[in-house]
């Protein structure tokens, strides 16, 4: 029955002949592993077609939905990370397989007559695949793809004659926007795959017409494609599949923070297989000849030499030249790639940039996955309005000129300064490290170790050369005197008192820990309040209280007008968000440091939103995060501990 059905079908379609043709290709010299490369390439392309189609069903190309839909695919959809992972890693593997295939073809002389045309068809396929990589890199619309692709299109704009027009056409305008995505997507999912199918068809047809390039006819008895070679090809494809599946599951395709034209992305790099070109462009001698030389003419000329190989290869010496050229090119590309990796690896600033990129990427994943999901304005606003993300940046921009944050600049970067002799030293802070601002340690230090706590001020220019100005001196003030009575403060009888006062001050500041309010011991806090307001100390400081000078101490922050100020810093709600807002807006107000103040006012330097973001970050008031803080990471690295819990480890990956 089936037999006659098939016969009927064959009668009308002739499929049997085609099938026979396809399967019983002669393989002189026997099936070999060295023939699998082409088949794995066809397989990877198949994987890309399949996974690409399914990604297409969930992808939305526009500037405020592209990243968002990819986030949704990657993090929320069933098997989304697998399908995207397969597509992401197979694309990279395809480049590797293509390179191996090309090198093998050249070494084996498989480009020689009568296979010249097929060699050129292969080169066309290579350009198409590179085009697919380039267009695909932008589609997630993340910082990484956005900035890397900017470089590619800018290079395109430097092409002779039609460069600018070509750039604007592919971008859909002079700048990146919605139409950049729609156009890249149309190329990536339409024109390029269609061309790839057409040229792959031709490539295979011409390949079959000429048959295999047999390395050694006597290697083994002649066989046919099916089943001997098919088995080997199948095993190779299986290996490929396992590799990309493993990468998808264990590593996962990266999705950095959403593209933001106003936010620097110092970690910008092209995909690793274009790193050699990237590194090449960094040579100064290349730049002497202009950008188009390094980025267009040189690669174009190299491709030209490769394309001319079938012609050059007519002579034996020509073939030798081709092989030598191929090896040199391979070594050159490999060398430049390794050099790029090496340089980035040892560049402290690049590593910091990468760390920050990963941090943002992790953080936006948390925010987008939050209960409010992503607003219509796009995920980029989530990061823009997130204190955990913006606080460190604002700190680095506005505060680190004087302050440090646990020794770094807020963004995890250690600060160096050049000495006149050219050596570098860790920069000297000229104000207090704010890493533990309003923590129990901070409060304790202010109370019992005031002079030391504020000692960094003495590094400042204004302190060293005060001129006529009256400046704040951490060694000589009433507070320094009181706090300097170490004997009394540190005595056993006052130990509990200090502890209670610290608890009270910490409770006043009301900081959150990673978005969670911190509950103090109510009895202790109340005892601390009494000590602050009434004073109930033992020993030499008996009869003193904070309120003796700081009449404001004892309750939540209450602004005091210039005329009503008591001449001592306002301690109501000291360290709290409300206090910080008032203090940062004008540290020289009478209720704060008054005339002695050297700290600039930040009401003028920052917008109200920025100030709020910074304060929310300083007070730990933001959506809880599992992202490792810079200081925790540093601590972990310094202690050399390899043991980290899975979550923070993956956050760093």
């Amino acid at each position, binding site marked *: 029955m089936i037999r006659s059905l098939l016969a009927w079908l064959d009668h009308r379609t*002739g499929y049997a002949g085609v099938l026979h043709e396809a399967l019983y290709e002669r393989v002189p010299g026997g099936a070999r592993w060295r023939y699998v490369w082409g088949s794995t390439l066809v397989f990877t392309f198949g994987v890309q077609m399949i996974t690409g189609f399914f990604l297409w069903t969930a992808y939305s190309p526009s500037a405020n939905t592209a990243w968002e839909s990819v986030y949704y695919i990657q993090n929320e959809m069933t098997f989304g990370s697998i399908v995207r992972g397969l597509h992401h890693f197979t694309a990279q593997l395809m480049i590797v397989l293509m390179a191996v295939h090309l090198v093998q073809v050249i070494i084996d002389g498989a480009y020689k007559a009568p296979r010249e045309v097929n060699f050129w068809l292969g080169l066309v396929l290579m350009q198409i695949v590179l085009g697919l990589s380039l267009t695909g890199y932008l589609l997630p619309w993340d910082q990484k793809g956005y900035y890397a692709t900017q470089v590619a299109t800018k290079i395109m704009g430097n092409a002779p004659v039609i460069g600018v027009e070509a750039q604007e056409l592919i971008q859909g305008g002079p700048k990146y926007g919605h139409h950049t995505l729609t156009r890249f997507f149309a190329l990536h999912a339409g024109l390029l795959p269609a061309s790839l199918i057409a040229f792959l068809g031709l490539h295979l047809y011409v390949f079959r017409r000429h048959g295999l390039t047999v390395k050694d006819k006597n290697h083994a008895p002649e066989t046919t494609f099916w089943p001997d070679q098919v088995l080997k090809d199948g095993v190779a494809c299986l290996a490929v599949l396992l590799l990309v599946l493993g990468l998808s599951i264990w590593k996962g395709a990266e999705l950095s923070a959403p593209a933001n034209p106003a936010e620097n992305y*110092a970690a910008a790099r092209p995909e690793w297989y274009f790193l050699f070109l990237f590194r090449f462009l960094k040579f*100064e001698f290349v730049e002497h000849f202009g950008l188009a030389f390094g980025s267009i003419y040189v690669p174009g000329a190299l491709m030209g030499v490769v394309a001319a190989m079938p012609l050059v290869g007519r002579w034996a010496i020509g073939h030798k030249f081709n092989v030598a050229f191929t090896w040199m090119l391979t070594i050159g590309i490999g060398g430049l790639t390794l050099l790029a990796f090496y340089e980035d690896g040892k560049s402290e600033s690049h590593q910091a940039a990468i760390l920050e990129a990963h941090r943002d990427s992790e953080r936006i994943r948390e925010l987008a996955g939050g209960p409010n999901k992503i607003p219509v304005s796009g995920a980029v606003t989530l990061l823009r309005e997130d204190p955990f993300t913006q606080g460190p940046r604002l700190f680095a921009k506005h505060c680190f000129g004087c302050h440090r944050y646990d020794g770094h600049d807020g963004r995890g970067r250690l600060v160096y300064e050049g000495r006149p002799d050219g050596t570098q030293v860790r920069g000297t802070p000229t104000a207090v490290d704010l890493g533990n601002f309003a923590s129990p340690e901070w409060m304790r230090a202010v109370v019992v170790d005031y002079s030391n706590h504020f000692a960094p001020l003495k590094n400042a220019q204004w302190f060293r050369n005060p001129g006529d100005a009256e400046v704040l001196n951490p060694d000589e003030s009433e507070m320094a005197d009181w706090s300097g009575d170490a004997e009394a403060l540190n005595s056993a009888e006052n130990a509990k008192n200090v502890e209670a006062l610290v608890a009270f001050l910490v409770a006043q500041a009301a900081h959150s820990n990673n978005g969670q309010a911190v509950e103090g011991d109510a009895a202790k806090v109340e005892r601390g309040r009494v000590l602050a307001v009434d004073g109930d100390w033992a020993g030499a400081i008996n009869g003193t209280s904070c309120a003796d000078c700081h009449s404001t101490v004892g309750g939540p922050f209450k602004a005091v007008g210039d005329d009503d100020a008591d001449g001592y810093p306002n301690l109501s709600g000291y360290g709290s968000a409300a206090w910080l807002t008032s203090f940062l807006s004008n540290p020289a107000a009478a209720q704060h440091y008054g005339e002695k103040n050297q700290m600039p006012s930040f009401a003028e330097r920052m917008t109200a939103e920025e100030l709020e973001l910074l304060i929310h970050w300083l007070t730990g008031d933001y959506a809880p995060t599992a992202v490792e803080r810079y200081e925790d990471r540093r601590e972990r690295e310094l202690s050399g501990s390899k043991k980290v819990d899975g979550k923070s480890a993956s956050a760093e990956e």
Partner: protein
Amino acid sequence: MIDENPQADLTPEDLPEADSSGETDGVQESAESSMVPAEGEFPGFAEIDERDEFPGFAEIDEVADFAEVAEVADFAEVAEVAEVAEVAEVAEVAEIAEVAEVAEVAEVAEVAEVAEVAEVAEIAEFPGFGESEDGQPEDVVSSADDSGAAKSDGPGRRSFLTQLLAGTVGTVVGLVPVLSGLVFFLDPLIRRGQSSDPDGSGTSGGKDSEGFVKLSVTRPLLPRDGTPQQVTVKDDLVDAWNKFPNVPIGSVWVRRSESGEVIVFNTICPHLGCSVEFRNVESDFYCPCHLSAFKLDGTKDNPIPPRDMDSLVVKPDTGDEIWVQFKNYRGGISEKVEI
């Protein structure tokens, strides 16, 4: 392909399996019967040599070494469908639609049916046919004529007109979608220079009528030692169908020069568009991508960037406020060309 065909010049006698005695009636019968049982029973095939009168026939010879003949169904003005048995070396039997009303074919009296049958069988292989996008029967005929004309001693005037007409129709139907699509695709170039400013007043968001936008930093706040400050520039952003009011559109480096005037640079590197950073150790501007370096006055400090940093026009006489004309410039070239 046609020229290489060894069968192209065979006479009917050369066709090994064809019976040249010729019984057209038999053809009719065979053709109309559902299946022609065996080789050699297709006497009408002998008439095929009248190819001069049947220009399209040149290709039909390929039937001889065809493995398969495509099935063509319901083709335009198909009057009858005939099933034809294997002819000569035709390995496979095909179901063939017959074009009955084609004028040129009809003139070939003796071979009318057979020729048409064969021609239609060859449709799939017609050189001209594959290019025709609309599938009009005229195209089939003209294609046949085209190739036939090459072989025969000049087609008739009618044939020429048909060719001309068919060619014109084919071009028009092909070009209209292609050209309109291309023009559509060129939209960004065609609309170049058109302002994205919707109300045409030149003002948008924080911009004044001269295109200056106010920065969030003031003159007294700039460090006296000339250390640059990075400032985000906010304005309305129009992207195709969207207008995003007052969003960050870029950023600038602002510093006080030695002479005390305010100078402003776009942070975008004039090389390839990464962001230029300030290095306090070297006290210079530096791009982390391709290592472009600039002095604090914006002049380039190594050969990598093609030009100095892009300085922006600062509005004079604005008191403490700093207003700047924010623009982006093309990368990679030595001239400063606005985008």
